[in-house]
């Protein structure tokens, strides 16, 4: 990245540059290594406003994004998987991963008791070791938000609530917004919404964008995570477009999956989404987080995601404010591997509490 010294808004070599290439002469002086497309921040703002205003512009923008070659993206993810994270680096990664967990329970059978137990675990994941950091958040259904909120007063642990007719999203906008308001009123710090995959897949991008914007507004101060449900989007091109769509709509985080659809998070999907947030940051200056959710059960997988974060977007995203794991059983494996790193021996599976 050549552009550290400058503000990104000035360097914009991503989508905006490509978008504008057809319409304006390039002042390119190739070979100097410097970016040349001189879109200032006002121009970027204007472009984003255009995208929000005009579905034609939005469609042109999304379809103008560079494609994702499936074979190449999967090969890159597979090569990063071979990174060998040992000793001090492993301990660092395990503790970082703990602090990035959104400890999740999203079952019809959830009870207040289960949520309280989850909150206790979230505040202090390992009762035997106070040096283990708390997790980032608990993630629950809206009706349980007040219970969690009370249990987590005075801690750094956030309350995240799914909303917008999670997981299918099959409800009217009014119902979805009511769902969001319910969660926010109950005290949710973060809202995990689902996009309308039907609308996205049928090309009604404007509809998806409007929903994201409306939910963002209904969130107020709460942070918005937009679930793309990549298992239903199928292609990486769709994943990249949906990522941009969510970011243009005001997402604070883009999230892979509900956990209710298979496949859920995969390494190549995470790679494509991280590339999208990287390019969006370069384009607009806004740092959007990524949450991978579903199917991440062991520490080894979590570390692989951290490697992809590290080598795709860099250390700024190695922070719970910009990267999260939506998981439940992952936490115990992280704790188990951590205690192995420190003591040299594996603890039994019963040594850590179930949520």
């Amino acid at each position, binding site marked *: 990245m050549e552009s550290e010294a400058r503000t990104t808004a000035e360097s914009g070599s991503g989508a905006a540059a490509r978008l504008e290439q057809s319409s304006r002469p390039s002042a390119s002086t190739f070979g100097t290594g410097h970016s040349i497309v001189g879109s200032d921040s006002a121009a970027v703002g204007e472009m984003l406003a255009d995208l929000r205003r005009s579905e034609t512009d939005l469609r042109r923008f999304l379809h103008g994004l560079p494609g994702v070659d499936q074979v190449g993206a999967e090969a890159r993810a597979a090569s990063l998987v071979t990174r060998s994270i040992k000793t001090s680096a492993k301990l660092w990664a395990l*503790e970082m991963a703990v602090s990035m967990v959104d400890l999740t329970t999203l079952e019809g059978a959830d009870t207040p008791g289960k949520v309280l137990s989850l909150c206790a675990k979230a505040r202090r994941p390992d009762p035997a070791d106070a040096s283990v950091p708390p997790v980032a958040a608990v993630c629950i259904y809206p009706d349980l938000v007040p219970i969690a909120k009370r249990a987590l007063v005075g801690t750094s642990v956030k309350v995240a609530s799914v909303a917008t007719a999670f997981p299918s999203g099959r409800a009217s906008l009014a119902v979805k917004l009511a769902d969001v308001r319910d969660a926010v009123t109950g005290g949710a710090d973060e809202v995990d919404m689902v996009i309308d995959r039907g609308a996205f897949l049928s090309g009604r991008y404007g509809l998806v964008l409007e929903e994201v914007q409306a939910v963002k507004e209904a969130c107020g101060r709460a942070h918005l995570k937009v679930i793309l449900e990549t298992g239903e989007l199928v292609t990486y091109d769709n994943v990249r477009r949906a990522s941009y769509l969510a970011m243009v709509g005001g997402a604070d985080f883009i999230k892979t999956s509900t956990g209710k659809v298979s496949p859920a998070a995969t390494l190549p999907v995470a790679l494509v989404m991280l590339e999208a947030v990287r390019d969006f940051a370069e384009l607009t200056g806004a740092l959007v987080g990524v949450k991978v959710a579903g199917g991440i059960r062991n520490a080894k997988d979590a570390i692989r995601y951290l490697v992809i974060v590290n080598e795709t977007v860099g250390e700024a995203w190695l922070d719970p404010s910009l990267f999260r794991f939506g998981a439940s059983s992952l936490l115990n494996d992280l704790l188990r591997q951590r205690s192995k790193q420190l003591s040299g021996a594996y603890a039994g599976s019963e040594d850590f509490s179930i949520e």
Partner: protein
Amino acid sequence: MTKSYPTHKPEAEPGTVPPLQGDVAEEISRPDASGQSRGSDDPAGGLVATRRGEQASFTYAPAPESRSIVHLQSSYGLFIDGAFVEPADGNAYKTENPATEEVLAEVAAAGLADVDRAVEVAGRAQREVWGPMSGAERAKYLFRVARIIQERSRELAVLESLDNGKPIRESRDVDVPLAAAHFFYYAGWADKLEYAGFGPHPAPIGVAGQVIPWNFPLMMAAWKLAPALAAGNTCVLKPASTTPLTALLLAEIIQQADLPPGVVNVVTGAGSVAGAALVAHPGIDKVAFTGSTEVGKDLQRAIAGTGKHLTLELGGKAANIVFEDAPLDQAVEGIVNGIFFNQGEVCCAGSRLLVQESIADTVVERLKRRLATLRVGDPLDKNTDLGAINNAAQLEKIRELAAAGEAEGAVRWSPSCTLPSKGYWFAPTVFTNVSQAHRIAQEEIFGPVLSVLTFRTPQEAVAKANNTVYGLSAGVWTEKGSRILWMAGQLRAGVVWANSFNRFDPTSPFGGYRESGFGREGGRQGLGAYLDV
């Protein structure tokens, strides 16, 4: 407008993108990772403040592959007639680890008498044992070799990285698996030669003299031996003088697989002595050479008029062509893989990047950002991306050509690298402002040096790509299928990769034309090179 976006990190300056982490603090630090951005990254994060292990950021700890799996002998003999023997005149030389300049072992330097003997036993084995043997029986031996290569893969990978300097990630994931794959593939052909499309009674040529380079020592040995043996030939293999050890381990594997004595012989030593004697030997019926164009030309002169069959796989100056509609992130990976795989010591390396002018700046910027994450260093570390240059002479050649690039006015760039003080190292290097007439655009550098040129139209891309004496490989990056097919037809290169680069498979013929040589290795065509058809 950016203010309408909640920036989660209160520490980050608004509108500023933090730098990618140069995650190899010891070896590479980002050239332009200025303090102000880095300082803004509170490692404890905004939400939790706690101890994270003992380090402040995600710096990968050393993860060296153990070398104890390799049992290096203090000296190695020649492998002739199924046994390791001392050379007739007792000459030896030392082979070293290019990453440390540490001497690994003493290796026999074959003389004329040794080559004589190797060719003689190979001829006898061909006439009396291997040639008359049924294809199905030959296949059993080859399958056995393939399986032992797999079983001893870690040992082979570590030894390859020690002797060659290439990262263990590559020797483990590319060289050794491909070597086994070639034996498996050609083992399958051994009893089906009459169906290979070379007539009803394809016959072996006889004794093959095979001279291989130092860039893929084991893999090249497999590419040469497997088809030759499947077709019923016997072999005398001359490994490169700087990388004899895995060929000798392969000889041990061949012994272990119980191949009849004399079917495979390995003579180590200097190209000018052992290599020259081998190809000139009257008992040799087929010469196969992979190496430099210069030596290839000498070799062709030397055997002219002898009636020997010949295949040559020589140098290259491949164009990696990126169109504006390319999948950009994957294209950048392909550029990196094209030129920095095996330190660029690859005959088919994508050493010329031809990028469409409209996206040239974007691509170069992204490429540089990506290169800042390349990890240069200990070849045995599992996280190393770029290892050592194989030998001092090669390093000198790379330095000389890179200096010529600067002198001719191209702009040189490398991520900031601290290279080890011992050993042969060259930082990954990108030249921009390169013109077609520059030496770095014309001559094969055979090192981690990329020359970037631009083009405006597909016709110009083809003209520039073909404007070279070589014709080994090319890459085309575009989402347009019809253009890929058109380009593939226009490019004068033996291999054209579409939206990928440096992908190899035993079923796919590989080879070049013009000064990149002739003949094909791999696939059915590779088999034909060892049949009298």
